[in-house]
């Protein structure tokens, strides 16, 4: 990792010196190794605080919405999984491609500080400490890049990302209800999921808009807890790249990605496999149709 970070820094400095880029979007060292945070670096001096280590799981693509509005080009460090989000944001005109220099960085799989806390990392396998999202890694390939930094990638057969969805589906309706009630009732409406989500990029969220008729700053009851997360998942359905950031940042450890993955699983099954952000200018399955699509009554047939 040390080497990769060095290569990134060198390249960033060169580009900054040549004036091709105005700033760098990367990760800034934190107090400890496990808490780097996303940051803009406007000068070579500031770049001294740049880091790229095992805890740089954060997806930077969403910050480019703001960067697109700034003067000049921004260099952004994009891991393979982040590249999907970036493509999606470009497709939706939220990020101006012209204003971005995409530096594709390799990723060996990122660690989960909660899993590593108090552990001796030399014990056990790296797999045991990886972020959940890395266990379902989409692969080492970047879907968008201006330049690529070579380096080690994650060597791990990805898990079936729908396994948990299937497990839930196999439960009885009451069990499913109880499961979700148990999870969602812990929501404190901190909005971390929304703020980190690259697909949740509305200039104003309906839940913050007093004129929307559904605004709610804090969930007052069970229903509003459900409502917020169902609607959020629906709004990003067909656009969610399954980057897993929502669950990663949730302070309550609610498995929010299981909502998104349910939509993805259903979309794949009913309308053909679709990976949002695979390439720019894709047509999301929710703004598309086939005359032969399954009827809702047929799609809902079966148990439960």
């Amino acid at each position: 990792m040390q080497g990769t970070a060095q290569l990134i820094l060198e390249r960033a400095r060169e580009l900054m010196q040549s004036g091709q880029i105005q700033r760098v979007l990367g990760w800034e060292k934190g107090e400890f190794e496990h808490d780097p945070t996303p940051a803009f670096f406007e000068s070579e001096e500031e770049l001294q605080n740049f880091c790229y280590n095992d805890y740089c799981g954060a997806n930077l693509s969403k910050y480019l919405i703001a960067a697109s509005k700034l003067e000049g080009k921004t260099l952004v460090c994009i891991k393979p999984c982040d590249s999907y989000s970036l493509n999606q944001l470009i497709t939706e005109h939220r990020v101006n491609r012209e204003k971005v220099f995409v530096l594709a960085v390799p990723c060996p799989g990122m660690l989960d500080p909660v899993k590593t806390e108090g552990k001796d990392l030399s014990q056990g396998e790296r797999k045991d400490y990886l972020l959940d999202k890395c266990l379902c890694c989409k692969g080492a390939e970047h879907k968008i890049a201006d330049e690529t930094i070579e380096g080690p990638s994650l060597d791990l057969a990805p898990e079936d990302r729908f396994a948990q969805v299937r497990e839930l589906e196999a439960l009885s309706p009451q069990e499913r209800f109880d499961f979700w009630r148990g999870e969602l009732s812990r929501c404190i409406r901190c909005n971390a999921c929304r703020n980190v989500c690259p697909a949740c990029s509305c200039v104003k969220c309906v839940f913050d808009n007093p004129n929307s008729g559904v605004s709610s700053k804090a969930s007052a009851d069970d229903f509003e807890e459900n409502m917020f997360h169902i609607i959020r998942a629906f709004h990003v359905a067909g656009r969610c790249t399954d980057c897993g950031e929502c669950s990663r940042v949730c302070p309550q450890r609610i498995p929010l990605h299981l909502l998104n993955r349910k939509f993805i699983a259903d979309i794949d099954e009913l309308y053909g496999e679709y990976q949002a952000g695979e390439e720019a200018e894709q047509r999301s399955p929710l703004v598309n149709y086939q005359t032969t699509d399954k009827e809702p009554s047929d799609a809902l047939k079966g148990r439960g």
Partner: protein
Amino acid sequence: MQRIGVFVCWCGSNIAGPVDVERVAEAMKSVPGVVHSTTYQYMCSEVGQSRIMEAIKEHQLTGVVVCSCSPRMHENTFRKTAQRAGLNPYMVEIANIREQCSWIHKDKEVGTQKAIVLAKAAVAKVMLNTPLQAGTSPVIKRALVIGGGIAGIQTALDIADAGYEVDIVEKSPTIGGRMAQLDKTFPTLDCSACILTPKMVDAAQNEKIDIISYAQVEKVSGFVGNFTVTIRKKARFVDELKCTGCGACMEKCPSKKGKNEFNMGLNNRTAIYIPFAQAIPNVAVIDPEQCLKLKTGKCGLCERVCSAGAINYKQEDEVFERQYGAIVAATGFKPIDLDAFDEYGYSQSKDVVTSLEFERIMNAAGPTGGQLVRPSDGKHPHEIVFIQCVGSRDTSGCGKPYCSKICCMYTAKHAMLVRDKYPDVNVHVFYIDVRTPGKNFDEFYRRAVEQYGVDYIKGMVGKVFPEGDKLIVQGSDLINGKQLALQADMVVLAAAIEPDPSARKLATMLTASMDTNDFFTEAHPKLRPVESPTAGVFLSGVCQGPKDIPETVAQAGAAASKVIGLLAKDHLVTNPCVAQSNELLCNGCSQCERVCPYGAISYVEKEIRGPGVREVRRVAQVNPAVCQGCGACTVTCPSGAMDLQGFSNLQIMAEVDAICK
């Protein structure tokens, strides 16, 4: 502060019977915002409307709720009423307490309670209504008629007569349609060709009419007053402008195995052919399936004999676009396939024919030169059995559930013509009912019985089968309580009629609705019988429902007058209930643009100024003249920037809240 008036209509006893209208009006008085609530026997009447107008003025109403019949019935009426009283017409909402309440609920308590909830929902909605201004869109002064049968021809003639240009698109090589195939017409027995062909010639010679034959509509876009239609004119392999219709090519053509469509396949025609002598345009056409030159490259006889040099084997389909203000569907009908009715032996004996085939056999220009002979052996028949309702009024799934309407009369006509020309032929007609509602119709049928001695048998045939050179017709005679086994020489089946199969595709292109039988649906079954629910699309002839020639001609004229009424306007008032984008909220993500069926949404880079915002953003804009107000965009918009006027998010949620309270 909103001041809402509620007006509860009795609709005579239609509403006031199962709903306690006074209680509804009383209950509404306590709803916040309602300042006036009253009832009247007929709100839609002159007096009812003046009461609303007076109340608007007297109570300075800002919104009106009428609890009455369906908004599909009188929403416009009451909008105009409000407008006359100085209120914006879009400040009116209707609570449907007739079709969706009083007519389906017998219990007065239940009906009244539901009416109150529906009224409250309407009040909740109207409180959030905003005054809307309708825009305008221009009208292209040209009409398209699809189908060149008697319906299409008459419609086109009438439109042209009013001075507007009109195109007829006909899928076969000639106009004329089914009527051109008929021998005589009931109840006057005048010759079909004699009354139709002059109209065909009129259409051909009319400067305002462009006949596009051997063509079909491929795509329709746009909206009332402004349709863009893509037309494909199939290759005839004959230059229409050069061909004189001399027929020399037909005499020389060596390929003589094509089924003669005009004679219902009773005889053959050549590969190059003119469908019939009076065809319009009187121009030959080459059937590529039969032509040796086109199939094998060898032959070319027609090209050699054509002195006009009209043959062009290299001709290709021509596809072009035209603009129209109005479109008339006149796609007509065909007799049903009789595959599901093998008990009548149609596929097993040539001497079992359909009525339309019989029409050709009786026609002097038909395959037998008008001689009544059996198709199997050319012998003169002595006993003919007619069977009515073959596939009509059939709910078993084999046929059509409706009455085909014309069969009783044409069967009486056939029976009478046979008896008149060949008194030695005995004619029997199996019937379920004889339906003759029309001027001089029953008299006509009775003449067949009383004067011509046609044997009408009340009953139905179970089976027809050949035995020797006879056909055995086994059926019931319900009046005499017998099962009959008649020996016949010919059997004529009055096959049900169904909409031409091309109509289904056309309906999809026109977004015009169809009923379960694929007949076009009219905007209102009684009050708007020649209009489709899709604005600017009109209906003429059997494509809307079974009808005979006089009815078809009457409907064709009615459709034409509706078209003329539309084309006479320079501008149309557009529906103001269209989508609108709130630029302050728009993300510019383009999701809405992708679902818009009309291409009404575009994007601009724009400086956005709002509370705490000042930046250039990409935002959606809706063209209100093109938007039709479906609302597809509103649901794709996650931020709620896109909303639909008249059916806004807040309005619909207010209705939801009121209903669930």
